[in-house]
């Protein structure tokens, strides 16, 4: 036991004396959560639009006022000629043009219909889509106000309610994802690098010749990272609660336990990577390509799994991060307990056991 404590002390010296690993351990989580929380967002705010108003009558003015009053749009300029639309998009600042047809009010009253053309810059399809939806929503609202004294015989009124994230804040989606990425990065990449470092330096050989047992070496190497990952998880949760007002509806204890489970599975992956790579560079490349990319692309963090082609959907099932994201979203946003998450938890437990068994086996083969 005394040997083991000495070993862990040494491991902390390594970590705290290396600026690079310190940055990855503590700078990265904070930087990432801030970045995703503030900068990267798929909500739209103050999008610059241009108005091409061929009528300039009372109705169009009212509509334009409504649009410019919303926080989503700001009117960048008023245009006169249809031909300028192309130039204005090419300049890049304006993302949408609203084109009111001639005699808008008159047509509306006489024919009961008038047209607004919404032209959007679809170089970014998501934003274009969102803009057109928002404009539509404002128009529908305006139309309703206009018609409020008239009753239509048959009417279907959709009442949408967005549960668990009524304001559709994207930070609710990013926090679970970032937490997953950070825990994966710290646990798997950092441990695989720190173990291969010993191999590369030749100190691993010295350790294996010493009376300290191989299992003690490995546990001693990963233990500090369990500790640091837990601290990271706490930092992320605290930041998201206090800065981004992310709710934690469910039990904090369950969240902590599930996080530790995920950390252990990531550590096992890290050990596995270290057994198959000879140098720190290889370990880092394998961790980045083999772990980070799938976590970002296939875990459902950014791209919804249900809209992926079937083969990718199947692959996503073997990615531990997918299950962990489901679990933390469930706990934080829906406030559900183990009775709803037991399946995902069990899958994660199974994967962890599998990874540990595999890395122990690989590690033994390597010793021969």
């Amino acid at each position, binding site marked *: 036991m005394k*040997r083991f404590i000495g*070993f862990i002390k*040494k491991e902390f*010296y390594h970590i705290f004396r290396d600026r690079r690993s310190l940055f990855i351990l503590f700078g990265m989580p904070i930087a990432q959560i801030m970045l995703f929380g503030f900068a990267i967002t798929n909500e739209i705010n103050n999008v610059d639009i241009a108005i091409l108003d061929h009528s300039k009558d009372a109705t169009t003015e009212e509509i334009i006022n409504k649009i410019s009053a919303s926080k989503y749009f700001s009117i960048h300029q008023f245009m006169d000629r249809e031909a300028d639309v192309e130039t204005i998009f090419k300049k890049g600042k304006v993302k949408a043009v609203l084109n009111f047809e001639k005699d808008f009010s008159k047509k509306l009253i006489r024919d009961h219909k008038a047209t607004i053309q919404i032209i959007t810059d679809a170089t970014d399809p998501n934003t274009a889509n969102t803009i057109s939806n928002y404009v539509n929503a404002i128009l529908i609202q305006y139309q309703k106000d206009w018609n409020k004294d008239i009753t239509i015989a048959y009417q279907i009124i959709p009442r949408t309610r967005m549960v668990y994230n009524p304001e559709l804040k994207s930070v609710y989606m990013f926090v679970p994802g970032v937490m997953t990425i950070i825990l994966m990065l710290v646990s798997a990449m950092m441990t695989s690098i720190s173990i291969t470092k010993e191999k590369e330096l*030749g100190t691993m050989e010295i350790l294996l*010749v010493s009376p300290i047992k191989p299992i003690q070496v490995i546990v001693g190497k990963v233990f500090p990272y369990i500790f640091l990952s837990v601290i990271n998880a706490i930092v992320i949760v605290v930041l998201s609660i206090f800065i981004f007002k992310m709710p934690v509806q469910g039990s904090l204890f369950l969240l902590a336990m599930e996080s530790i489970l995920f950390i252990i599975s990531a550590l096992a992956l890290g050990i596995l990577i270290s057994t198959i790579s000879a140098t720190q560079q290889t370990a880092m490349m394998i961790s980045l390509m083999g772990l980070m990319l799938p976590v970002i692309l296939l875990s459902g963090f950014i791209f919804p799994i249900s809209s992926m082609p079937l083969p990718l959907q199947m692959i996503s099932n073997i990615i531990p991060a997918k299950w962990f994201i489901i679990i933390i979203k469930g706990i934080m946003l829906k406030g559900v307990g183990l009775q709803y998450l037991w399946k995902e938890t069990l899958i994660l437990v199974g994967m962890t056991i599998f990874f540990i068994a595999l890395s122990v086996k690989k590690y033994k083969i390597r010793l021969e």
Partner: protein
Amino acid sequence: MNNNNVIEAQNLTKMFGDFTAVSAISFEVKKGEIFGFLGANGAGKTTAMKMLIGISKPTAGKASVAGFDVYKQAEDIKKNIGYMSQKFALYDDLTVKENIMFFGGIYGVSRKRIKEKTAILIEELGLEEVANQLVGALPLGWKQKLSFSVSLIHDPKIVFLDEPTGGVDPITRRQFWEMIYKAANQGTTVFVTTHYMDEAEYCDRVSIMVNGKIEALDTPKKLKQQFNVTNMNDVFLKLARG
């Protein structure tokens, strides 16, 4: 087993698939002896040594180190030997003192004893001024000497040195050998691989491995007589060329 022998090997063999890295070697090393284990690169020295220090299982044959069987008692062997590899293997990001403490610790040396040892060691090596500096900042020669001292921290019966003087200057090599003599005089058996033939002259007995077999084993003096040459270099060349 002869009480005077601390290492005994009989027909010790290691195969990797079809390739025989070490082919039925037999030898013994006496207590307090400096035993030179020579051979060209790839002759099987390191593989043979790995079997003796308990990190590689032999394919066939028998061997015991410090009275323990290499098959069944590898853990006991590990407690009784010191090892220094050809790669410099202390931690660059730990100080001189921290390295000594750490390695003393994993060999289970008591804290009190480590403190005493550290003081003696630092004084002997003249490292007083850099004791609290990171090892990475030391010159290679100092690192090698420190590394050797660290491999003796738990007073092992046998110390295995795998090409310990690779890449250091002649003066440091000389000092290094003085340290080896000192350890041997205090009763530690030294098992050393090298391919510097002048170093072979310093050994009590040498064995020369060619293609996985021990082709010669005797004192440097007798080997020179046997091959009718004036130095070990020529002995080696004659053997290696077959």
